């Protein structure tokens, strides 16, 4: 992976971490309910783990597929999927349906996995992942990071998901602690920007970009 890819993965991770629906708000609510900062902090790793699982599946599939098919097929097909999913998210007003707030740690990871998957968090990384195929032999690739063979490529996908999730975790943790300790949840009323719409827009844009880059 190139530095540019790493940066993009981390940037998207930060974007996901920012979204209240991806988990930091749930961590805050759990902490407030039990009046315990520790409960808040302990909620963050399972949420990140669920997110990682959701993203890693997409990343591994993309990386493994890339190693066996022609370079631009993954980009074009993936891009089309991404545009379609993004448009559906943009036009549909349906929201994630979930009842139940008292979750065990494994359930919390499961909730995060479903939430991330329903939002297509992993799909959003497609442009970056697909770019792997074209940058693999480019000069600016980090030395020694490009590996060949399907299982190895899948591992690379996992590494990408890991970088992404680390950034997501950092932003999520910072926001959760800041809101819990200092800001208070009333901030939601003014500052909870409609991430879903922006999110869907980013997806459509990313998909189109992937197709354009891959078709070159």
């Amino acid at each position, binding site marked *: 992976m190139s530095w540019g890819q790493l940066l993009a993965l981390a940037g998207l991770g930060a974007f996901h971490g920012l979204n*209240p*629906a991806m988990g930091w*708000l*749930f961590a*805050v*609510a759990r902490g*407030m*309910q039990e*009046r315990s900062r520790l409960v808040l902090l302990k909620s963050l790793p399972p949420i990140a783990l669920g997110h990682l699982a959701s993203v890693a599946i997409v990343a591994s599939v993309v990386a493994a597929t890339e190693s066996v098919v022609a370079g631009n097929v993954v980009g074009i097909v993936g891009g089309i999927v991404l545009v379609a999913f993004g448009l559906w998210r943009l036009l549909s*007003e*349906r*929201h*994630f*349906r*979930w*009842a*139940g*707030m*008292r979750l065990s740690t494994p359930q919390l990871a499961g*909730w995060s996995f479903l939430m991330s998957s329903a939002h297509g968090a992993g799909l959003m990384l497609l442009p970056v992942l697909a770019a792997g195929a074209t940058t693999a032999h480019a000069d600016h690739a980090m030395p020694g990071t490009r590996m060949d063979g399907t299982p190895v490529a899948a591992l690379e996908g996992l590494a990408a998901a890991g970088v992404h999730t680390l950034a997501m975790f950092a932003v999520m943790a910072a926001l959760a602690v800041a809101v819990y300790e200092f800001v208070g*949840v*009333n901030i*939601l*009323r*003014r*500052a*909870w*920007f*409609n991430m*879903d*719409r922006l999110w869907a827009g980013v997806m459509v844009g990313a998909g189109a970009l992937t197709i354009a880059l891959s078709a070159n």
Partner: protein
Amino acid sequence: MTRWTPDPTFYPTPRDAAGAPAEKLAYVAAFDRAAEQPDAIAVIDTDPGSDTYGRVVGWTDLPHTGDELHHFGWNACSSALCPTAPHPHVERRYLIVPGLRSSRIYVLDTKDDPRAPRLVKEIPAEELAAKADYSRPHTIHCGPDGIYVSALGNGRDGGGPGGIAVLDHTTFDVRGQWEADRGDQHLAYDFWWHLTRDVLVTSEWGTPDMIENGIDPELLLGRQYGHRLHFWDLAKRTLVQSVDLGDQYQMTLELRPAHEPTKEYGFVGVVVSVEDLSASIWVWHREAGEFKVTKVIDIPAEPAATEDLPPALQPFGAVPPLVTDIDLSVDDKFLYVSCWGTGELKQYDVSDPFHPVEVGSVRLGGIVGRVAHPSFPDERLAGGPQMVEVSRDGRRVYVTNSLYGSWDDQFYPDGVGAWLAKIDVAAEGGLTLDPKFFPHGDEFRGRRVHQTRLQGGDASSDSYCFPSA
């Protein structure tokens, strides 16, 4: 279309909601007992700075007759901020309005002209029956994953079980029956929840064939109306525990859980004890994992001369208080109790829920009292304070006077009339009737009035997922 920022009427915590601005409009369910004219949603001006303050300023007739509008609610509320399935960018704009007799459910849009709600959808009784096997829809609550609607009867024959149906948040289509396992629960009426505890609570009135032709003295004295509370797992949709209050306590109706998410108690009103005609208020609470229900208020019957009583009550020589609605202020401090028989609204300080202190009272109407409104001292009022709604800041209380068509006729056989009174609340408790606010009689065009909903939300419309402190 969704919004870019959350609907301004959604509040994360009860304390934030208690700081909400005063309501400018109230919506009131109005129904024609004769089923000759259509039922309607009446819109009342509640802005004290307005020239039409306290007057009916809007009126939306429904397309059918005989619906018997009763309770209703909003499509979305503060529960949209709950973190497991947040959807804060939907709008609180649709009123979900069930016909308790017709089993039809209307959806009215209040956005374009809040004074003229516009009908946008009708869910036929057949759809509710086919998809959820329910009829006689009653209470509406905006849930985390859909709109929950309680129903008194099954979708086939006027019997039970009653239960809860779920409507889609966006399309309002009936998604189906809520219960995965109802155990021996058969009677239904009200429901609400402790969202952050995954607990849903339901109460019991009677099946449609037990109530639609009036209160049945044989069933009542045979202790056949509901006397239990049911506690459910909100996530698994299964019955966890039922608590029997004792079969003398007939009709456990309105459920008012504490708004504060860290509290796990709530209040329920019992209409009448068949042993002494008293009414009572109980608190549910949890001890070592088990729910308990404890009586905290007894309201005795008032002796009366036989000739002052309607035939149904003459054998008893007393007026039962008939507690038919209660409401808890958003800050969980004051509980309002409607005594529809004796014609009194009582206010209790329930800061300590196990030791309520009566701090206010207003008398209007009543089976024997017929107390007039101070602004219309010559008009003896029928009915009594019944449906009670409290503003989010807790400073204003609205009461209407009809209970349920066929039951009105038994207890107020010379006609129940129609009135909506507003009561001002002093900061530390104490009630005063607002002399300038009393829409009544012909202003309601021959209809009777039941539930009131306040624009932007009220004390019985919203649930909160974040503690105040």
